[in-house]
């Protein structure tokens, strides 16, 4: 049943497939983030309590939710790489890690910028903020562990184990606002029930969340392709590719 999937473990095929997918992801990401941001920042109504400063939500929420999704994507790839020994999955995990770290950083910075006018402080040590900070440290740990091995096959496996161990933090971030009394507001977007947010604000937000996902996908594909080339530099197909590009 999964046989058709196996051929994509081959680096050359994975490289080609990601090359075909890249323009789609990139174009859609530009489109969605453009529409979502312009709609959200310029046309969405002003919040009656928070005024205009609520508009950072259109960056903050997508970044925060995608920081967790990117981690799950990285851990899933690492798991596939460890269990089925598929190297492309290891490379994908290595490609996602720095992107996830940057998105987490964006979520923290925008959160701080939002916290200053609303809560009167840049930072509070409450459950959600702290666990998001821990997520950033986990990403940095995975990145630096991957960087510190000379042998990249070992590096990917070691970083993969760490990524999988760190998954324990994801439910803690997700449910921190429900488990602990937190200054951070609970989730307003719900999949099964009606969201507690006006639709004129909700739609641009959802568009931006999708856009951030697509953007992460696009950047991951770029890094993934680079990673494939870097790890397969001695293969004939990579050499031909380089020759076609005019590299000696």
């Amino acid at each position, binding site marked *: 049943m999964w046989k058709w999937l196996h051929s994509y473990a081959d680096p050359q095929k994975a490289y080609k497939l990601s090359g075909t997918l890249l323009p789609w992801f990139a174009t859609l990401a530009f489109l969605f983030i453009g529409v979502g941001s312009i709609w959200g920042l310029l046309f969405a109504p002003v919040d009656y309590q928070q005024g205009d400063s609520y508009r950072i939500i259109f960056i903050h929420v997508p970044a925060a939710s995608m920081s967790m999704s990117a981690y799950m994507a990285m851990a899933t790839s690492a798991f596939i790489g460890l269990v089925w020994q598929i190297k492309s999955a290891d490379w994908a995990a290595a490609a996602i890690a720095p992107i996830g770290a940057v998105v987490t950083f964006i979520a923290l910075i925008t959160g701080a910028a939002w916290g200053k006018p609303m809560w009167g402080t840049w930072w509070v040590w409450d459950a959600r903020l702290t666990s998001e900070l821990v997520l950033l440290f986990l990403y940095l740990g995975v990145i630096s*562990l991957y960087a510190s091995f000379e042998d990249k096959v070992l590096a990917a496996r070691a970083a993969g184990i760490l990524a999988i161990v760190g998954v324990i933090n994801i439910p803690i971030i997700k449910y921190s606002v429900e488990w602990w009394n937190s200054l951070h507001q609970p989730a307003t977007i719900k999949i099964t029930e009606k969201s507690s947010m006006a639709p004129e604000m909700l739609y641009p937000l959802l568009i931006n969340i999708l856009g951030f996902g697509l953007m992460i996908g696009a950047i991951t594909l770029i890094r993934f392709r680079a990673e494939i080339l870097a790890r397969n530099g001695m293969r004939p197909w990579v050499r031909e590719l380089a020759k076609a590009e005019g590299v000696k």
Partner: protein
Amino acid sequence: MNKGISFTQAFFTLLKRDLKIAIRHKGDIFNPLLFFILVVTLFPLGIGPEPQVLTRVAPGIIWVAALLASMLSLERLFKADFADGSLEQMLLSPQPLSLMVLAKVLAHWLLTGVPLILVAPLLAVLLHLEANSYGALMATLALGTPVLSLLGAIGVALTVGLRKGGVLLSLLILPLYIPVLIFATSAIDAAGLNLPYSGHLAIIGAMLVGSLILAPFAIGASLRVSTN
């Protein structure tokens, strides 16, 4: 195939061996303990000797010092065995690797965690800890330090093959230590206010059970990567 000795025998043989080695190098036991005491001593000098201030920060100081001491002592958990090749023999032995690493981690905890628990009340006196927090302090340390050893061993196993693993190790395992720190210190704070703290203890206990079951596999897998 003849497996030689039973799992129980293998476990206790390794445990005895590690304890014996440590007793012959007494520095391995005393240095982390001295480090723990020294770090705790630095805080009153740094933030001033007012009893009220110290009472407030005592749980945090003791626990942060415990985390650092645990991390510092863990660094040598697999180092000697890796250097002289006995780690590879453990990997090759017919007994499951997770059992062997559990024995090593248990030995490590007996040598560094237990002395730390024993000396903690003394330091708590120096820091003017609330009188009714002592029970919580001992209970959280007793439940929490094994978790530290188990989680930390994963990081150590990942970095044992690296030449400069020290700084990296702190980046890998301190984030994993944070939940233990949070629940332990809030338990001690709750006890200081005469509030019930059994909920916090139950969560630390759950972390202990969870890491006791899952960590040995992660440690084993990491060691296989490191010794490749």
